[in-house]
């Protein structure tokens, strides 16, 4: 239905030539934009309501004194629904450690939270379909669990800044009470807030996507970064690590790259590297983690994401 609307708009209302590249690009742009914004609004709204039941204070309580492994699984899952922004990563980290959440479990949460979220889900779903979305979510969770378990097993607490362990919270943090109406209101505000923050990125990204879609030859990238090039995955991941973007900015570009011959594993690995690891986040985490632990963190993440990329290229 949406496809018809978009086609109608372009070929009938704007009266463009059906076979021209420009109309092809516009068709892609209009259709993808409408579809993504509808999905975005609905899914963020629903996720926001779920989120309102999991403020970080509650998540912290759930994860406190959890065992390695089971704790990491819960942390990765809670990472999806607990609201998180990179500027509150430091207070969150301190709060978790102070409440007795093990270091490895805290790390699982910190990995999963920015990587697997509703915006990523919407865009993947809208552009690649539900199968790829399910694969991305499950492997994202696996990466988060694995990274946290390894860091937990290595017992690297000595590389956490000492002051973190000195902070003691005397009074218990209160969770601000909410009625269901408050939650609906929160969901409405949160949806508006997120859409306001990402709409321009999405438009630009779909624009670039549309341009590549229409003007760059189909197999342009295959010769450089196709499945048979063994270096495609590590190069994509290493390029992605320092880059900073949220899911909104990166996915439509990634979509266009895939259309032009980049393989699925390479694309998903690139996206994970961009969202889970970034220079600004590493700088923020430096406030609580000493450099060796940061190095271990980045190293494990990079290696795991590269492995995931190879795995997908082999099976998909």
């Amino acid at each position, binding site marked *: 239905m949406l496809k018809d609307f978009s086609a109608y708009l372009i070929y009938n209302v704007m009266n463009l030539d059906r076979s021209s590249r420009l109309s092809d690009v516009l068709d892609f742009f209009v259709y993808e934009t409408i579809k993504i914004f509808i999905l975005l609004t609905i899914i963020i709204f629903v996720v926001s309501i779920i989120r309102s039941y999991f403020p*970080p204070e509650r998540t912290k309580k759930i994860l406190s004194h959890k065992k390695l492994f089971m704790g990491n699984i819960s942390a990765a899952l809670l990472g999806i629904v607990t609201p998180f922004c990179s500027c*509150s990563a*430091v207070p969150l980290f301190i709060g978790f450690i102070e409440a007795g959440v093990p270091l490895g479990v805290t790390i699982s949460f910190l990995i999963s939270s920015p990587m697997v979220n509703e915006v990523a889900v919407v865009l993947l779903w809208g552009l690649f379909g539900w199968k790829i979305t399910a694969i991305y979510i499950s492997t994202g969770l696996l990466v988060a669990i694995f990274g946290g378990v390894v860091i937990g097993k290595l017992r690297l607490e000595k590389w956490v800044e000492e002051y973190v362990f000195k*902070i003691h919270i005397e009074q218990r*943090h209160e969770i601000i009470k909410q009625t269901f109406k408050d939650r609906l209101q929160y969901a409405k505000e949160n949806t508006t807030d997120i859409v306001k923050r990402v709409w321009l990125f999405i438009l630009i990204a779909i624009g670039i996507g549309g341009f590549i879609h229409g003007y760059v030859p189909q197999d342009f990238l295959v010769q450089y970064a196709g499945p048979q090039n063994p270096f495609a995955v590590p190069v994509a991941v290493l390029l992605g690590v320092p880059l900073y973007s949220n899911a909104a900015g990166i996915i439509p570009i990634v979509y266009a790259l895939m259309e032009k011959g980049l393989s699925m594993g390479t694309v998903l690995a690139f996206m994970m590297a961009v969202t889970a690891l970034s220079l600004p986040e590493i700088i923020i985490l430096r406030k609580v983690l000493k450099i060796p632990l940061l190095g271990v963190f980045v190293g494990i993440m990079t290696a795991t994401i590269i492995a995931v990329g190879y795995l997908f290229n082999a099976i998909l």
Partner: protein
Amino acid sequence: MEIKVLGPGCYNCQLLEENVKKAVKELGIEAKVEKITDMFEIMKYTMSTPGLLINGKLKHAGRPLPTLDKVKELIRVEA
């Protein structure tokens, strides 16, 4: 009245501080608005920044930020 904005200094914390100052001005209330960036202090009250503390009570935590009207309402209730 004592109002504190809790946050390590990110963009959202600045926005909230601006809104609080505006609200105080528009309400014409005597209030001391202070920004708390010390992690030890922030952690006493919340993990979700930015936080809004009015007379020692946590009134808001995290994102999305409260609108100007909401901030005014929170202040008015305590005034």
